[in-house]
């Protein structure tokens, strides 16, 4: 097309070329500085002996050694594994089941969908505070059941070092499964009716239709949900802070809480930066294979 245009490109033409770049430039710049710039900055800090303020004296991997020698970091990491796996699996399962039930052309679907989606509208701080009260033995479920006459009833996960991390799973699942439901519901609505009819004509039972026909089609939704949920899991901070404060002791610490404590409360910026880098690698370990498969997929199309 362009070869028929005059030698001197008109103002409008030049604008057409430059305008998108001009408009995108500020956000691109902000992204480069605020994301990648600070990632590099944090990475560099993690190699220094910085304590209270950044100090540019490089000491190699000493901070990482200290980090992995710290028992609290071990607790935070193993908590992340427990929390991440349970949170993602349970959210997926509940979200999928809710979506399938809602997809049965039931009556007040709109209202029910809103109810399940509603927890997403409150922040993790609110969720954490509410669940703190519900799970507190002296205020919540334990007291309620005891008041009903079952005086031996015990439910004190919140104050038990071994179980506290599971209370965080409960609250996080409550918050996020409605969102997963919405994702699956959208996916289910996109499934071609004819495929389901064909399966029915072939004599497939409803569960067989779901298992062999519909769920394989929903594979991209699964991927999307896992990626979103896993980054929620890794960056979880406010929920822990509001629900358990990392306690009892530091039994329910997650890496983000560890990082905050060491970088900002304890004047150990180097260790804090090192833990932030480890978290970043955790996110990348999930994101890179995902992006790889996505990009390869789009090239194939």
């Amino acid at each position, binding site marked *: 097309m362009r070869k028929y245009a005059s030698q001197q490109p008109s103002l409008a033409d030049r604008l057409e070329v430059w305008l998108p770049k001009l408009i995108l430039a500020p956000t691109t710049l902000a992204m480069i500085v605020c994301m990648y710039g600070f990632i590099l900055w944090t990475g560099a800090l993690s190699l220094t002996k910085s304590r209270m303020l950044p100090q540019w004296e490089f000491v190699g991997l000493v901070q990482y050694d200290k980090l992995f020698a*710290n028992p609290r970091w071990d607790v935070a990491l193993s908590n992340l594994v427990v929390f991440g796996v349970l949170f993602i699996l349970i959210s997926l399962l509940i979200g999928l089941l809710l979506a399938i039930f809602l997809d049965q052309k039931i009556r007040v679907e709109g209202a029910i969908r809103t109810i399940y989606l509603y927890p997403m509208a409150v922040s993790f701080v609110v969720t954490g505070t509410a669940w703190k009260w519900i799970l507190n033995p002296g205020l919540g479920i334990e007291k309620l059941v005891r008041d009903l006459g079952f005086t031996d009833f015990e439910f004190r996960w919140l104050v038990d070092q071994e179980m506290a991390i599971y209370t965080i799973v409960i609250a996080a699942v409550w918050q996020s499964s409605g969102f997963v439901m919405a994702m699956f519901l959208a996916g289910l609505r996109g499934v071609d009716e004819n495929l389901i009819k064909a399966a029915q004509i072939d004599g497939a039972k409803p569960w067989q239709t779901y298992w062999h026909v519909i769920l394989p089609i929903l594979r991209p939704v699964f991927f999307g949900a896992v990626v979103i949920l896993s980054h929620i899991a890794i960056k979880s901070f406010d929920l822990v802070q509001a629900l358990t404060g990392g306690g009892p002791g530091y039994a329910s610490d997650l890496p983000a809480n560890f990082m905050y404590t060491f970088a900002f409360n304890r004047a150990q910026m180097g260790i804090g930066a090192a833990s932030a880098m480890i978290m970043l690698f955790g996110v990348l370990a999930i994101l890179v294979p995902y992006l790889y498969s996505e990009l390869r997929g789009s090239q194939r199309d």
Partner: protein
Amino acid sequence: MLKRSIAACVAAASFALTPATQAAEVEVLHWWTSGGEAKSVAYLKKRLEGQGVAWKDFAVAGGGGENAMTVLKSRAVSGNPPTAAQIKGPSIQEWGELGFLASVDDVAKANKWDALLPTVVSDVMKHDGKYVAAPVNVHRVNWLWANPEVFRKAGATIPTTWADFMVQAKKVKDAGYIALAHGGQAWQDATVFEAVVLGVGGPEYYQKAFVELDMDALNSKTTEDVFRVFGELRQFIDTNSPGRDWNVATSMVINGEAAMQIMGDWAKGEFAVAGKRAGTDYVCVASPGTSNAFTFNVDSFAFFKQSDTGAQKAQKAMAQEILGSDFQKVFNLNKGSIPARLGMARDEFDTCAHDSMNAFVASSQTGGLVPSFAHGMAVSEAVSGAIYDVATNYFNSSTSAADGKAQLVAAVQAAM
């Protein structure tokens, strides 16, 4: 036209960004935003305004001051620190090390601060032998707050040693009360741990192990005894304690739900607000085994280097005012602590404060006056954080005393 208005905008913006160079102004970073603390700060502001020094309040809320410290760091790094900031303990040395603090030594010399302050306190205020900070108060941390009514009903007496504590607390517990009101937050666990260290090991051990971080002292049998006693306390707190705020625990003593609480003298404010009287409605005694000792927690303002001469003058005026007997009296009456300055008229203070003052003077002569590690007075934030972790983890689990000791030694060594 457009050009001119842009120029005007830029001028206005740059004017707004330049720090105000008013003749005499202090900008003070603090986190005293609630109740008696806010009143105390307001009084300092009033006194300074009386001398023509304007007060620019730079309050960052958040009890422990973590938020305030984060703001301070970013201000200091960007080259625009406030005139003075509420910093205490070894942090003053860390800031001094980084070259941010200004000397107010001439004010100190003129007003004879060396004679007014006990050496342990003035040492904290100095960097490189020069005063860079001024103390506003002294908190005693090793207090036991008791409800005598609960003790009477349970047929128990207020304990003076840890061995006795276990006996009396058992009686209280059997009578159906909570023996020890406690909030399961790391700093509160550390506050109780500190009281046990001082009561079981004595001031000398405390000084060696938790201030000088002497590995032999930390590794001694005494540390194991400390952990054993600390572990025995687990049975005397209620199961709902995790996450509870300290003032909620205090109100349990006030209401007669619980018999005792181990907490610094800021707890007095809670009793006062509830209309309780020292000596009759509640009793303050030194925590078990520490009547001859005093763990101090001194709040102070550190002074930051200023380029502006007006600001420097205002800074000195503020330093002088802080150690003035008038300010020290009013501030501490409001806050529940005692003046950092020695030899002041004491008739307006209550009996708990009198006890505190007596113990302060007496212990400063016997060596029983030790800095509180649970409140950031004794060791760097890194080390006190490590001690916090071990204490809170131990208290909330069923770790053995020997393992507790091993964890403490390892954690302190790693953080040094």
